[in-house]
């Protein structure tokens, strides 16, 4: 009898001594609200390499970007492997709302200004709301401001001839902490092209991805396939843009260093007008630098 009694006492002691902390944990677990877990940091930057990623500036955050593409590696020692020549693109890009980013930039190539909007439509999420992909819409207008060539008497140039329009759907999925992939169907309309054999309307599909090698370093690749490129008989011949790069993140900066066969840094340039060939060594070294400033008061 004494034995049973002590077991009984022991059990009660165990139940009251041990039970509570678990009980406390369970109560708190129940009180924590279930959340929608959005996939964040699908890419480190608003560009995968040349093209836009689904990332955008949050509300009241300003991104100042400077990008360079040097000449071709195959220019040899004479051209210091391309470093003698450099094209620049710089831009200011601002998050009006978390879902809306506006930006304006200028490229030295063809003295081109560009203005763009990126609108977030869907966010990849798990938890209480499931959404398999991110979806954003990107649109831009590019204004080429090179002086028009002399025209024959009686004909004139129009401002509209300087314009090109870019439309893209950005569809991305962060598969896991390291791997993110993006598909980018693209439609570009150019009001004026050089010859009759050039296309005014360009259809292309971008495929881009990143793989994180460490928390602050990722390997990126980007390829834009053009369905109806300019005629191959033209000089210079058009090629699809292929770029490989790394992202290095250091607090408020992201450095992107890449090799690419395209010298252009805007969609209207690197998608229809890439004339470098990887096989021939027309490879450009380049970098993008992003610096983010926060303007929200709190």
């Amino acid at each position, binding site marked *: *009898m004494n034995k049973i*009694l002590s077991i*009984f*006492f022991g059990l*009660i002691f165990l*139940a*009251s001594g041990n*039970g*509570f*902390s678990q009980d*406390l*944990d369970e*109560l*708190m*677990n129940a*009180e*924590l*609200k279930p*959340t929608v*877990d959005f996939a*964040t*940091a699908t890419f480190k930057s608003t560009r995968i390499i040349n093209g836009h990623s689904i990332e955008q*500036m*949050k*509300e009241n*955050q300003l991104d100042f970007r400077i990008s360079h593409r040097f000449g071709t590696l195959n220019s040899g020692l004479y051209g210091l492997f391309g470093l003698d020549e450099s094209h620049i693109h710089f831009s200011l890009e601002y*998050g009006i709302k978390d879902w809306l980013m506006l930006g304006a930039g200028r490229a030295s190539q063809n003295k081109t200004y560009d203005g763009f909007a990126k609108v977030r439509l869907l966010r990849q999420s798990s938890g209480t709301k499931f959404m398999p992909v991110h979806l954003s819409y990107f649109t831009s207008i590019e204004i080429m401001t090179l002086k028009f060539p002399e025209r024959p008497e009686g004909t004139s140039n129009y401002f509209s001839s300087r314009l090109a329009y870019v439309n893209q759907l950005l569809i991305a999925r962060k598969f896991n*902490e390291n791997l993110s992939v993006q598909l980018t169907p693209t439609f570009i309309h150019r009001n004026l092209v050089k010859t009759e054999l050039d296309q005014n309307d360009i259809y292309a599909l971008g495929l881009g991805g990143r793989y994180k090698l460490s*928390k*602050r370093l990722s390997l990126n690749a980007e390829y834009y396939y053009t369905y109806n490129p300019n005629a191959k008989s033209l000089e210079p011949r058009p090629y699809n843009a292929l770029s490989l790069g790394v992202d290095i993140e*250091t*607090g*408020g900066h992201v450095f992107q260093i890449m090799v690419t066969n395209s010298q252009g840094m805007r969609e209207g340039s690197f998608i229809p007008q890439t004339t470098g060939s990887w096989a021939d060594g027309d490879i450009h070294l380049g970098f993008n630098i992003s610096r*983010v400033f*926060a303007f*929200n008061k*709190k």
Partner: protein
Amino acid sequence: MLKKLFILIFITASIGAFGQSKFIAKNAYISFYSSTPLEDILGESNEAVTILNAETGEIGFQALMTTFHFKRALMEEHFNENYMESAKFPKARFNGKIEGFNKDMLTAPVANIKVTGLLNVHGVEKTITVPGTLGIENGKLVGTSKFKVTPEDYGIVIPAIVRDKIGKEMEVTVKANYLPFGK
């Protein structure tokens, strides 16, 4: 005689198990702050949950890492991605006990207390003892605490390149307005 004893024990035990009164705060405030000449970092959450057992003085906190917000969107992203690894370790927990607890502490004016318990952050658990206050303020039971933690103690690696921007120690501030549980 023995039967009566059994019943008595049983009743006492059940009162112990089911009749415990608890206090809860569902929107407790937790922040951490570090200041260096280069940068101030402040992360704040108003969605922490805490429960206080009025019988035993046991006290628990839980907070989802993604409920911490920062002035800079990038800081928040880096906090979750690079430092706390919130996808892997979504929650911070503290389970502790108020030292020298007695029930009068819950009805008396605010007084200093000490709490000892296990803090679990970034998947690493450590026993800590922190100072705090507990008591009635404006008719409500309020608990606060302010203490320092060192990120490295919890396996949070801060690379050399940002070392100058992030303090060696984070000052953690906790504030909870407790209400009776289940009422």
